């Protein structure tokens, strides 16, 4: 989702660009509960969009895993789009043009030339998005509620356990989350470093 959007934004010279950039970046500024609240409204049967989703597509998104997924996606979008957009803009325009004059399509150019040359931006976006989604709380709580076994995510489970004074259980959840996040981040940064070293060799 982030990739085509970032590509379009980086290449666009449209007058609407600032507007779209602002919409994508809104979750950076607003409290997560605001996003969650409006998504909750949008998915419910009191709005046109919600009625369309439920009636036509049979998608009832509130308090389901799908709803959480979409909520997290909207909320984490700027963390993916912004590094990628910066990455695209940093690449010299002549790289794209050189590929075009060699007869390469836009897609081939994106896949074989642009993306391989912006790996740091790509990894940065993945790390930020991942980290942010893992720690996501407000949007998920608003849309998903906290239904055990269905929409209860780790961060909310911890909060619930602490509220009920089950510190041992909270600690188990929290420590697992910490360990998983740490391992994945270390792996990603290690990979970035190795890649940079290989590039200079």
């Amino acid at each position, binding site marked *: 989702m982030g990739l085509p959007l970032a590509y379009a934004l980086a290449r666009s010279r449209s007058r609407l660009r600032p507007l779209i950039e602002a919409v994508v970046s809104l979750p950076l500024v607003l409290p997560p509960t605001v996003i969650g609240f409006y998504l909750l409204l949008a998915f419910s049967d009191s709005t046109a969009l919600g009625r369309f989703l439920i009636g036509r597509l049979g998608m009832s998104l509130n308090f389901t895993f799908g709803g959480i997924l979409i909520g997290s996606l909207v909320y984490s979008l700027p963390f993916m789009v912004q590094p990628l957009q910066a990455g695209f803009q940093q690449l010299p325009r*002549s790289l794209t*043009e050189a590929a075009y*004059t*060699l007869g390469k399509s836009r897609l081939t150019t994106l896949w074989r030339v642009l993306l391989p*040359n912006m790996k740091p931006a790509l990894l940065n976006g993945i790390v930020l998005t991942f980290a942010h989604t893992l720690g996501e709380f407000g949007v998920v709580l608003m849309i998903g509620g906290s239904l055990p076994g269905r929409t209860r995510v780790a961060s909310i489970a911890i909060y619930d356990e602490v509220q009920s004074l089950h510190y041992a259980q909270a600690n188990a959840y929290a420590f697992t989350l910490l360990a998983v996040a740490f391992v994945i981040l270390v792996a990603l940064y290690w990979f970035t470093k190795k890649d940079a070293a290989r*590039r200079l060799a």
Partner: protein
Amino acid sequence: MIDFHLTKALHTAAGPRKLDVRLTLAPGELLAISGPSGAGKTTLLRLLAGLSRPDSGFLQVDGQEWYSHERKHWLPPQRRPLGFVFQDYALFPNMTVRENLAFAAAGQPNPRQLEAGLLSLLELTELAERRPVALSGGQQQRVALARALARRPRLLLLDEPLAALDGPSRQRLQQALADIHREFNLTTLLISHDPAEIARLAHRVVELDLGRVRRVGAPEPPAGALVQGRVEAVLPGGLLRVRLAGSTALVEVPAPVGSTPVPGDELALMLAVVSVPQLAC
């Protein structure tokens, strides 16, 4: 045969101007474009390559229509068989020299053979497994040239390919350009500011200024650079041994493009060694 008339609005330091150029190139011609910065040289090349859209006019290459304002026809750059060498070389940093060529040669008949041929023609075989960051400017420029040729273009567009190079690698690349032109006989447009370079490589030169053609004609060698000589012998490999007028000195030079002098012919030469290097390189 290339025939075009292209116009495009230019934004120059002197305010808005209109680029308006009408030219016809004979097959195999090497045309140099020179002029001050902001004259529209690079814009003209980009219009020919399809990297920018002209405001009006037409462009025909070997009887094929690449652009026509009247018929609202515009061929995207991907479908124009041309080679473009960029000022900043624009090599793909994620690929080795060989991979850069292979990427360009993909889809051509016998891509491997083509690739190997170009590597050896431009003396890149030794460097084939290196990435562009590990190459000097001159080496990168030779890779860019090889990559442009790997598509088997019908038209070669060179945007100041020699501007960023110093003395020896400049000489070497000039030689490479002359060799390539002899070998492939490609219609070529070359942007250059160096009169000696233009005189050595080009059949004709177009001087652009503020978007207009100031002069089209034979290249003028820089004053005082000409030396008379007489051909002593024709050597294998397209070389001539020439005795310089008024001395006993003999020099060996490549035969001029498109003609074969015989012993006894009088020639005008431009000698190109500019300084004596301290170290052999």
